[in-house]
């Protein structure tokens, strides 16, 4: 088992950018499934609406980062590292983190790296960034997590776009972040976009619709073995939390907030029930934003806990999904700054390559 404990790094603030365009699943279901209608889908998954537009992940993260740096009073010259966690980078190459360094006007003495992870990505990104910073040589870093891209209606009514930013600061004596991280690559195809990578490069056939489990999708859209992912989520999350709390001798029921990846309501309700957690301590944002991949934990904190994080707060968070991969983290905050949600419109003016 992969356990980590990282000291002297605290989360100073968080922000999130989402497309301004709202898609309501009751109004735009587009005959997504032959098995169920829009109302059944919304009732069962808990996803009423999502934010989707022609906006890549980085265009959601950059304005959110500018807003957050203003809110926490950081000078851009102080930021020494950017980690960009996404499965929708701007280009196959170069790394999007490099482009963001320039867009934010950060100095060139900047560690910048992309990490390709999905629903567990915020926890993995946090573990990577905090580990880099724990000896104090890098003192301020931005962790950006999320997914967005040129619009594809075939990605289905479960998923929304978001780009989040977590500001991390070296702070001696602030306590520690405690992690449990795991992987099961035997189910790599449980959630997969089959084409577009090196194994199956893009061809015209990649965009031909085909029926997969009763749904018409192409090979550049996300396909998911929903039942297997459901089984994975309801079993791995309670196990990972119990392992973390046993390893570090924590009383998991004493945390202020439990924030889980926003997969679907039925799964999260069951996880909450199995862990015997009170609903008021388990915020959720999937009703308005859907499943936003690696953005879902920070997006939930930004949109649901604004005004509730003054003083000391303790968090237990778990991300789980594509990989299959999972990560649980326990951390404390002190006067955590949460920026107001940034709504982003499609940029039709900038000329990108």
């Amino acid at each position, binding site marked *: 088992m992969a356990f980590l404990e990282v000291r002297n790094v605290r989360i100073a603030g968080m922000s999130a950018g989402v497309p301004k365009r709202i898609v309501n699943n009751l109004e735009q279901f587009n005959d997504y499934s032959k098995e169920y209608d829009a109302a059944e889908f919304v009732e069962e998954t808990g996803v009423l609406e999502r934010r989707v537009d022609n906006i890549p992940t980085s265009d959601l993260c950059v304005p959110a980062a500018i807003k957050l740096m203003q809110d926490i009073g950081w000078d851009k010259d102080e930021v020494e590292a950017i980690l960009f966690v996404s499965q929708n980078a701007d280009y196959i190459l170069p790394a999007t983190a490099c482009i963001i360094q320039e867009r934010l006007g950060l100095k060139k003495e900047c560690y910048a790296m992309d990490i390709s992870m999905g629903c567990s990505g915020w926890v993995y990104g946090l573990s990577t960034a905090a580990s880099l910073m724990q000896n104090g040589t890098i003192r301020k870093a931005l962790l950006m997590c999320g997914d967005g891209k040129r619009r594809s209606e075939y990605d289905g009514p479960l998923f929304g776009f978001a780009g989040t930013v977590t500001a991390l600061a070296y702070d001696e004596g602030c306590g520690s972040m405690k992690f449990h991280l795991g992987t099961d690559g035997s189910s790599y195809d449980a959630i997969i976009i089959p084409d577009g990578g090196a194994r199956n490069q893009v061809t015209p056939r990649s965009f031909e619709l085909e029926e997969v489990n009763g749904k018409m999708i192409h090979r550049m859209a996300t396909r998911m073995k*929903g039942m297997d992912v*459901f089984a994975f989520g309801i079993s791995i999350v309670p196990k990972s939390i119990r392992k973390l709390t046993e390893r570090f001798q924590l009383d998991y029921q004493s945390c202020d907030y439990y924030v889980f990846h926003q997969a*679907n309501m039925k799964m999260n309700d069951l996880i909450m029930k199995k862990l015997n957690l009170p609903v008021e301590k388990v915020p959720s944002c999937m009703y308005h934003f859907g499943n936003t991949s690696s953005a879902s934990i920070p997006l939930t904190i930004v949109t649901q806990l604004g005004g509730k994080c003054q003083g000391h707060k303790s968090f237990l968070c778990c991300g789980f999904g594509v990989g299959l991969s999972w990560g649980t983290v326990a951390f404390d905050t002190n006067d955590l700054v949460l920026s107001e949600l940034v709504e982003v419109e499609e940029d039709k003016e900038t000329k990108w390559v």
Partner: protein
Amino acid sequence: MDINDFIQHFVELFDETDPSVFTPETVFHDLDEYSSLMALSIMAMVNVEYDVTLKGNDMSAAVTIEDLYNIVKSKM
């Protein structure tokens, strides 16, 4: 574990299906109300009531309610 209790849990999930339809021999995949979303509800019910985690293959391998009951029983 009792098949009648198992069937009763099934009945409670299907709001729009006549309870008399549910027997050990019922081919639950053929019920109008059954869908992949309903399958998740069945998996959740089994997890809560029997502490057993079913996978997609288990759901597709079971033809009747009794088949699924036997799969759950074998995993306990």
